[in-house]
């Protein structure tokens, strides 16, 4: 049987805290296959762990390698790296908007740049996702004119537009109404069933309790290391 290439793979990755205002870690090893969800629990006070920038090849580890779709980021040319990043969607831990574009342009940006899909089709998908996440529509304004609670949910919309290989959710509930958690969890489950890999970086796993999710792997950043936890509970139902 042909071995499947993981969507994302960290091989013995270490990065040290430096001038980049990041929290370092050592010897992290994990892989994420198509349709899997990796929940990584970050302890309070250890924010800014640069898992997402490393997973996207935006940051080079001090040692070890990060692979996306079997290709090491460091070995890919800048053009190839951009194409690879076009297959990834992300909810950012920090402000994740381009302020000189309006919200709709922001939401359609990655898809219109990386694919040939008609713009009208992309806009319709964006509006449909906005309704799915409990919004009446997409605000006709620039991000600086939109409330941060709404912006957070709009970041969810952007993360699910198109057919990415990997979705990275960096503390997606930070600043978002908890009442909408179920909508995001449902969307993650559906994406996972479609074969999308999801890397979910969280600081509070209570939201997942009692929630049936398939193909979930659970990790905890403890000290400088990342430990795989018992994930039998999440792999049922």
């Amino acid at each position, binding site marked *: 049987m042909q071995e499947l290439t993981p969507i994302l793979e960290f091989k013995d990755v270490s990065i040290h805290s430096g001038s980049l205002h990041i929290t370092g870690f050592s010897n992290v090893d994990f892989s994420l296959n198509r349709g899997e969800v990796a929940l990584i629990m970050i302890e309070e006070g250890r924010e800014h762990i640069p898992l997402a920038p490393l997973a996207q090849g935006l940051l080079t580890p001090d040692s070890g390698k990060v692979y996306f779709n079997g290709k090491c980021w460091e070995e890919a040319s800048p053009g190839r790296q951009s194409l690879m990043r076009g297959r990834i969607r992300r909810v950012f831990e920090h402000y994740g908007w381009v302020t000189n574009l309006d919200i709709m342009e922001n939401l359609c940006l*990655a898809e219109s740049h990386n694919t040939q899909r008609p713009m009208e089709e992309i806009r319709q998908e964006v509006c449909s996702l906005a309704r799915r996440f409990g919004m009446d529509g997409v605000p006709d304004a620039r991000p600086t004119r939109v409330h941060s609670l709404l912006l957070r949910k709009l970041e969810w919309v952007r993360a699910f537009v198109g057919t990415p290989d990997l979705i990275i959710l960096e503390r997606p509930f930070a600043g978002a109404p908890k009442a909408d958690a179920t909508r995001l969890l449902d969307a993650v489950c559906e994406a996972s069933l479609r074969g999308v890999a999801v890397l979910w970086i969280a600081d509070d796993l209570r939201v997942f309790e009692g929630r049936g999710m398939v193909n979930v792997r659970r990790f905890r950043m403890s000290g400088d290391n990342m430990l795989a936890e018992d994930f039998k509970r999440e792999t049922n139902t």
Partner: protein
Amino acid sequence: MFGLAIIGKGAIDLFNRICRLASISAAVLSLAAKPSSWTRPTRMVLARQILFTGYDAIGFIAVVAMLTGISVVVQAQVWMGRLGQSELLGPLLVTVIVREVGPLLVSFIVIGRSATAMAAEMAGMKVRREVEVLDAQGLDPLIFLVMPRAISMALCIFGLVMLFVLFSFVSGYLSGAFLQTGPTDPAIFGRSVIRGMQARDFYNVLAKTLLPGLVIGVIAASEGLSVEGVATDVPQAVTRAVTRSILAVLFISVVVSILTYM
């Protein structure tokens, strides 16, 4: 010895900056030649930049061109008439307006109006980590931010110089006719100017508009993007962009002028 070391370090820094500028400009031109670079968002940035740098500047350029035309053309007509060299009016106007004043003035206006805005915009994006947001979505900052802006600068400066020349000659002719310092027949004035133009003027204008435009765009964008995440560095980046752009425009102008007369 200490003074020599400072001069040497300055020379090495200048050489490195010129090499960096040349390599970014070459990368921009190489990317612009690839159809795959011109995705929908990139075309949108180009269109908006042309609107801001070119279209929105037409009114101001027209006023400056008319004032320049009145002062330069009328003075040229008066002095050529006094010296009995009226037949040299066309070549003189072409040399002054088309080859030198037009490209330089338009470049300086674009630097003051657009390059400053561009450098501040890029620096602001860097400070707010928006460049990382673009990069994370598969949009190469060189393709999405730098290339369309530099190309639009080049196109806009070329277009604005053409308008500048047109407005300054028209205003010059009208004021000359009104003050009776020059020919009242527009055909005579037009023929004089056209006779003064040579093939090399065309290459001169191309080199003095497209090249500085590209360089101004690259300098403004790269200086803005060189800010390392601190808001207080933004004004300094804008200042650097202005001074370096002015120096680059003057340097290119001098080199092209020398080459034109060689």
